[in-house]
């Protein structure tokens, strides 16, 4: 598995994603600067978290025009796998590679804490190793994580089984008190129509080693590995 980790001006979690893939998973990873125009030769592209362009105007609003986004559109059109995490998810929605948008948290404050997530589908390259309904713990760290979409988009996401993860309590139940940012339907992650582009607000790369307080993030990376070796 050869992974490209995109680097925009203002990206912060590029180093963390690189560390997870390269040093924890032991797979090849390469930083790709946002001015690059080709993503040939990669199996997976990670659009990492951070504050691309300072999150000015809207998170991802400016980054979506970087040259590498054109390459990413071609890469994913040919079926290449792309995972957007936090700011990466925001960039993918702004670029139209994923439906919906990420708005200001309902509490209007930045939130950094562990959250429980319920796996809504195992038919995806990021959740293949987890059965539907499994509860995992992955931290969030964002100010604009409230996922919204118009009604028929939400309906299509439900009908096509393209909702990846929902915020929930330790018992797996969804509800207002376990929804940290007001996301519609407690949605924490979604999948594109062709199921090869995924976006999630929680940071799996932050829970891939026990010393950091959890390893549920490994299940995401292992799922990606499985889906590639199976392909």
């Amino acid at each position, binding site marked *: 598995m050869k992974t490209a980790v995109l680097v925009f*001006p203002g990206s912060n979690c590029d180093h963390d994603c690189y560390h997870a893939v390269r040093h924890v998973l032991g797979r090849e990873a390469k930083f790709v600067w946002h001015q690059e125009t080709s993503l040939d030769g990669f199996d997976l592209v990670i659009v990492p978290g951070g504050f691309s362009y300072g999150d000015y105007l809207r998170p991802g609003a400016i980054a979506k025009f970087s040259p590498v986004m054109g390459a990413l559109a071609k890469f994913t059109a040919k079926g290449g796998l792309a995972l957007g995490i936090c700011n990466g998810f925001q960039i993918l929605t702004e670029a139209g590679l994923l439906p919906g948008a990420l708005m200001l948290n309902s509490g209007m*404050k*930045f939130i*950094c*804490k562990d959250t429980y997530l319920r796996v809504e589908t195992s038919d995806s390259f990021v959740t293949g190793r987890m059965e539907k309904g499994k509860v995992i713990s992955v931290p969030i760290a964002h*100010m604009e994580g409230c996922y919204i979409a118009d009604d028929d988009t939400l309906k299509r996401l439900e009908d096509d089984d393209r909702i990846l993860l929902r915020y929930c309590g330790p018992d797996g139940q969804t509800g207002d008190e376990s929804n940290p940012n007001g996301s519609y339907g407690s949605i924490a992650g979604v999948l594109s129509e062709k199921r090869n582009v995924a976006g999630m607000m929680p940071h799996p790369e*932050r829970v891939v080693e026990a*010393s950091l307080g959890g390893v549920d993030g490994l299940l995401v990376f292992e799922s990606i590995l499985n889906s590639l070796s199976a392909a």
Partner: protein
Amino acid sequence: MFDAHQIILHGLTYDEFDLALEIIGRQPNMVELGIFSVMWSEHCSYKSSRTHLKNFPTTGPQVIHGPGENAGVVDIGDGLAVVFKMESHNHPSYIEPYQGAATGVGGILRDVFTMGARPYALLDSLRFGDPSHPKTKYLLDGVVAGIAGYGNCMGVPTIGGELSFHPSYNGNCLVNAFNLGIVNKDRIFLGTASGVGNPVMYVGSKTGRDGIHGATMASAEFGDGGEERRPTVQVGDPFTEKQLLEALLELFKTDYVVGIQDMGAAGLTSSSFEMAGRAGTGVELDIEKVPRREEGMNPYEVMLSESQERMLLVCHKGVEDKIKAIFEKWGLSAEVVGRVTGDGMVRIMEKGQMAAELPAAPLSQKAPMYSRPASPPDDLAVRHKLDHDSLPQPKDYTETLSRLLASPNLCSREWVYNQYDHMVRTNTIEKPGSDAAVIRVKGTSKAVAMSLDCNSRYCYLDPYMGGAQAVAEATRNVACSGAKPLAITDCLNFGSPEKPEVMWQFIQAIKGMSDACIALGTPVVSGNVSFYNQTGETAINPTPSIGAMGLLEDHEKLVSQYFSEEGDVIIVLGETFAEIGGSEYLSVIHGQERGAPPKVDLTKEAALQKTLVELADKRLVKSMHDVSDGGLGVALMECCFKPGTSAPLGFEV
């Protein structure tokens, strides 16, 4: 000839103005007067504190650079060193809390990465007035949001600190920011302008009129009219600073750079004078070349502007374009604005005209130094009087304990640190809420522990004991994680040095801190002094806040403060005395702030800390927690609540 009004307006006394005349042998022009005023402000020259700061122990085998550089540097083995410092932004934060706190974080980050280190951890020590005071909530919300806004955008985790409330801060909050970075020992860059003829380059954001006289404002008392001094607040742009950081770390991989310094308080002035002063050289600047974001700025404004996210560097001849290319990649300005000269003078040119010419070394090293009168407060004896028997025993201990746990200075700080991204860089192995915050050092087995501490009530009652206790507690918190305390930095927040009682508090606190540093083997490697923290006549409680740093050789041996399993045995180390002077209990339950604070036995403290480190090293304990504010009862309760877990453990004692 300047009239009295202009001299006073520039914050200089007549004697200081006379010393300036003596140094340059003529009348200064307006630009030069402005330069004298910022260089000799309390904030930049430490004129009321320098003579006392000399008493701090600042050396040790582990110390690579002590006070005098942009930040302290301590050796942690494996060819690596940590670079750390604390800086205060109290006055700007009182005027505009969000931007004041944000630019405080921006400034302390630059002090660390200017030395070549990538910043890895931010902590903040915050003090506000009484929660019931109308301005407290506004200041608290703004300051926390500002720290979060800047630190999160920079991708540097804010992993701990301290927060406390006391009426003495009603009109003057304290915002002290601590930052620690890691660097290869052979890639440390200093703030010196050496090599006559070498180009001097300005890199980073463009210059505007913000913050002019920010340095002198930092030394200006807040009378009730404090609100009018509004326009001097600087605005921070964390996105530009992130670009500046990445550009500089790319530059530091080359050997182009001779010396570099952050343009902090007093901007272009302090950086050019201090860099030349340290190297014994001079600098010639052509300020036409300084990139500006506003038209019509005169030399006075360009030299005194405190626009953020700017650095001054000296490089070898011939690499200017290579340096420009790096900064252009990151979307930043990079202009040659002058060159190093050999005559020890700083010359400011504008369109071929001489706008200012002053000697470098005297401005930074021969600044006035005062040994101001100091005398204890006349009510000291009254403050210490506390008749234990007169205090009724609590009728219901449970109710008393829960009131203590709910009090503003002891309740959970989750509301604050959950606004900080405390996980980015995936190094945080001890998250906020525990005694010390700990990060691992990737590529090694090591970890670095940090803690900020100070009990300002103890310092009000007995500054000597308060100073010693602050060092003891900060280093003990570090030892509680298993790490061996190595060094400290500090932010000495006091009232007006022109008041003898305040100077007495300052001198006593430094004595107490020095004795503790010597006994505990933790020298002072950097720090900051903030005077004139007053509202009208009332000085704040003396607040020497301490930032302690320690090293854990094997991060697997990390110890946290939380109970882990049922049936584990609880042991209390050290003796308990009938000491409730200046305690939270006395203040929260009895509404009194009196009595002598608890005695600090430094020999026992040193032995205790060695024991804690050994217990962790030999894996004999599952958790360790420091008994401090609130006493044993509160400490035991704090061990039960591990953030993020729903079912707390209990205890039987």
